[in-house]
């Protein structure tokens, strides 16, 4: 190690957001927790300012290759900020009611977790990656258990903590094995060293298999890929709904970017079937297939909208991983694009669930009966989000699925794509079931739902994103293609 170069300019957005989180907490305490809305608006403003800073300070490598502010990181940071923004925006109802004594902590923790995600997406090195992952996850443990009087919420936090710790341990074990084989934590160096090792020795022993499987398992926890998904429904159901949304989008996106960094960049050599039995492609493909099947089919029998969305998000990650295992420029771009569309649709759907839950206290699907009469706009938003998640043209979800499947076909994963298509049909059933309940069942029609302006903003962002980028996906897709070009894949 010659000189330790650090370019603080590159981490200005992260530092700002970190400081802002402290400001939010202090503001809440100093204002004696009276202003229920201003804390939330302050948080949203911080996220918006971070986005502006991000736009101004990106591009470059710092801290001896540990922090890479490249375009892939930028793309995912936009998603993180977006999901945090939408989660905060839909939290105003809880903030004024259920968590009124801990608003600052609630918003601050969301921001801390976001900072973690941002560091994670920029890390080009195992240690910083791991630290970023922990910084992402630990605030989420707390947030999941934020309704400390509620048994389910506490249980959710507890389960998330145990499983999260377990997965972190597994991941760390895998990472240390990798370090042992290559003698470096720098992903680019790992790539080079492994190639050299492979060339000189002819083969690499089963130890690397252990490392690969461990890392896959560890990251799959974050992604909730089958069979490492089992914590997700319980946690999603118990956690405060905006946190569930944040978990299902932000934390997943973090997992995706970590996976892309380690496997598509560092272990790129081991996706080739020639590398059998070292290739990780087939393992991930099978896991993606299992995720699509288990996620979609289990969702069929759910009666709680959050739990249903939890299973649906398990399935969505399955679709997303088709693009990942394609290991092509189009594949990685499709993953990014899918995540972007998923951000709008899923955050939107959870926002509707939050608004509804704030008003009625119920998250059961059957309580949505006749919602189209009492709250037509809300129902219409929900219908649009769910149809986008199903992948109905011309909404964003369709374009996303289309591109992911196109990448899969390009890479020759026909069976995976066909399975994806078939399970999409199954998915339609449970998504449409909600729409049916809202539109074609009679229910409590004198329900009055006032949507908070911030939540309204979230819904509008979601609907516009889903529709505009569904019809005109060009800008996002080009952005994703540019970021995917980073890995110099075929």
């Amino acid at each position: 190690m010659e000189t330790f170069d650090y370019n603080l300019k590159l981490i200005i957005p992260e530092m700002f957001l970190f400081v802002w989180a402290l400001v939010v907490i202090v503001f809440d305490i100093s204002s004696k927790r009276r202003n229920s809305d201003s804390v939330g608006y302050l948080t949203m403003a911080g996220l918006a300012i971070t986005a502006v800073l991000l736009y101004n300070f990106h591009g470059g490598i710092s801290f001896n290759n540990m922090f890479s502010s490249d375009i892939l990181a930028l793309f995912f940071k936009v998603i993180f900020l977006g999901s945090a923004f939408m989660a905060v925006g839909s939290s105003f109802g809880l903030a004024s009611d259920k968590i009124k004594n801990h608003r600052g902590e609630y918003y601050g923790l969301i921001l801390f977790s976001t900072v973690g995600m941002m560091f994670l997406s920029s890390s080009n090195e195992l240690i910083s990656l791991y630290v970023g992952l922990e910084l992402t996850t630990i605030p989420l443990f707390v947030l999941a258990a934020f309704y400390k009087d509620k048994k389910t919420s506490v249980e959710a936090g507890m389960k998330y903590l145990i499983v999260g710790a377990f997965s972190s341990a597994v991941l760390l074990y895998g990472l240390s094995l990798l370090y042992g084989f290559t003698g470096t934590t720098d992903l680019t160096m790992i790539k080079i060293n492994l190639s050299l090792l492979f060339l000189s020795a002819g083969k690499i022993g089963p130890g690397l298999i252990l490392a690969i499987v461990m890392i896959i398992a560890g990251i799959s926890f974050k992604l909730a890929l089958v069979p490492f998904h089992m914590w997700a429904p319980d946690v999603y159901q118990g956690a405060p709904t905006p946190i569930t949304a944040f978990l299902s989008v932000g934390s997943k996106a973090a997992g995706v970017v970590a996976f892309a960094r380690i496997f598509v960049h560092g272990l790129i050599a081991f996706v080739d079937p020639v590398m059998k039995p070292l290739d990780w492609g087939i393992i991930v493909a099978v896991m993606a297939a299992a995720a699509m099947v288990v996620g979609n089919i289990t969702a069929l029998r759910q009666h709680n909208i959050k739990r249903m969305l939890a299973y649906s998000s398990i399935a969505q990650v399955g679709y997303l991983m088709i693009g990942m295992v394609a290991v092509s420029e189009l594949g990685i771009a499709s993953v990014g694009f899918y995540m972007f569309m998923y951000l709008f649709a899923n955050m939107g759907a959870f926002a509707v669930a939050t608004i509804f839950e704030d008003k009625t206290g119920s998250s059961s699907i059957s309580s949505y009966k006749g919602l189209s009469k009492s709250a037509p706009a809300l129902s219409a938003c929900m219908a649009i989000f769910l149809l986008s998640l199903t992948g109905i043209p011309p909404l964003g979800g369709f374009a996303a699925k289309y591109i992911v499947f196109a990448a899969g076909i390009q890479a020759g994963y026909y069976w995976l794509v066909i399975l994806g298509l078939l399970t999409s049909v199954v998915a339609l059933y449970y998504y449409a079931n909600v729409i049916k309940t809202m539109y074609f069942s009679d229910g409590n029609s004198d329900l009055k739902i006032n949507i908070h302006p911030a939540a309204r903003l979230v819904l509008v962002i979601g609907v516009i994103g889903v529709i505009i980028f569904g019809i005109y996906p060009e800008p996002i897709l080009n952005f994703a293609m540019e970021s995917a070009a980073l890995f110099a894949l075929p």
Partner: protein
Amino acid sequence: MLENAYLIPIYPLLAFVIIIFATRWKEKLSSAISIAAILVAVIHSIFVMIAVIGRHGVPFELSVPFIEHPLISLETGIFIDPLTAVMLLVVTIVSGCVQIYSLGYMHGDPRWSRYFSYLSLFTFSMLGLVVANNFFMIFIFWELVGLTSYLLIGFWFEKDSASDAGKKAFITTRIGDLGFIIGILLLATYAGTLNYQEVFTKVADGAVPVGVLTMIGIFIFCGAVGKSAQFPLHVWLPDAMEGPTPVSALIHAATMVAAGVYLVARSMTLFVGSAEAAMTVAVIGLITSFMAASIALVQNDIKRVLAYSTVSQLGYMIMALGLYGFDVAKDPHSHSVGYFAGTFHLMTHAFFKALLFLGAGSVIHAVHTNDIQEMGGLSKKMKITSLTFFIASLSIAGIFPLSGFWSKDEIVAATLGHPVFMFFTLLIAFITAFYMFRLCFLTFTGKPRNQERFDHAHESPKTMTMPLMFLAFLSVFAGWVGMPWLSHGFSSFVYTGELQHHGPNYIVMLVSTIVAVSGIGLAYTVYFKKKISADVLMEKFKPLYTLLLNKYYFDEIYDKVIIKPLLAFTRMMWWSDANIIDGLVNFVGWFTIKWADAKMLFDKYIIDGAVNGAGTVCMAASWLFKYVQNGSVQFYTLVVITSAVGVIIYKVTPEGFVYYFIGVVVVALARFLMKMNRPEEGNVETEPEG
């Protein structure tokens, strides 16, 4: 005036539209509009004629693309050369005369406005046909005149005979039109264009093989055969006399039936390219002409005599054109006058034949019958009508110096070098003179054979006699433009190929005059002086008389050979429809129902079973997965470790994975059986289904 000549057809079209949509209820106004439109068209046509004369034979063309396609481009436009200009004048003048005449003739008709609107529509169609610059457009207008002809023949559709005649005319001409469109399609295929000038240039350059050209010529001639009532499709024209007499004058004497002649003249380049096609045209023309003239000898219906006369004269023109084509095909520098003769006769014939029909209409208007055996001595009561009728008869007989003389003379001249044609042409000229004066003498001279009708008779009103006089004027003088002594007459105005100027042929003039005078003399002897009894002649030539009276049995032959077998065939088809086809259909229906029943069972149990089965399987799997999700974190981590270990084992030793997998399944089953009744823990949903 030439640039906006496309307006000439538009005037009557506007009249038609205005009458139909606006002024239908105001009869006087409707007819006024119609006549005003045609008068404007006449004036415009005169200006066009002047402009065309000024251009010294250079045609004027205006074309607008209609459909652009790589294979063929269709266009709409106008093409005006001397022939077009002549046709425009003829059509507009005759149409104008007829419309004015109709004011008197149709007096009191309940469908007055409709009549005039139809006349306007016809005039529009006919003018459009004349100015069209390509075969596509001419075909459209060709069909339009057919339609208006149908409408006007059947104008008094209460009469069965009228509506039948309309149908007959429409269907018979349609047979010819089929040939016409085949010809057009062949032309489009081989020449790649339908524009007259482009087609003719290509044909003249030899772009179309001669064999194909013969086919195209004959097919296009089929259209002319139908429209101009040539053998063997001539049968509709006599029946078409069921329409109002002015209509017969306009459509079935002067203009529409001349469209066939116009078509042949227009497409002369095609016939010049194929001597066979040209000879076919000439032969058909001669047969038609002779046959029709001979039938006209014995008919007693005044309009039918004129109708057969028309057919005969059209045959004349066609023959002349055909002979021209043949002569030029054989020798490009031939001095044949056929083209000039045919088109010239077309013009003169239009005037005197329209006059004859209108005169006949005047007579019918007076005595309310068509049968000449019930007339006689009418010249005493109808001075103008009889005088003009005699002038027209002299003209058609070819008496110097009436217009018919000049044109008929040229037709005879056109047969020079074809002895058979010449013989028959002179024979026909003789017959024509005879039957025309038979008609004149029987109608206007002698004693009235039906006193009651005679007493009732009166001269027609001014609106009818004025057109008669005007047309009589034209019948005398219109032919003078074609006098062989003129160095810039008709022959050097309307021509195709090389400009040829022909001097007068005095021998031909003399012979044809002798023939005409002897025909008139014979008629005078038989029907005026009654030196020879017509009845005796009738007895003497009984079989021939019967044959002619029955028009060579054409209608009967068609009835026996075509219509009866066709009806029998259709009856057979009807029977087979009713029994075999319907039986089959009913069987298929019955079978389909049974088959559907079977399929319903299949659908119900197999397909629905599969669909519901898929659903059930999904639901069952869902239940299983849901059961596995038992809420226990310890179990979750167990699954994780089991899976991870499984993957590692699979990667290291795929065979060992099989044992591992079996072991896991056994343990899982055992656990499942042991703990099946254990209540679920934690967040696992306990809500009832609903």
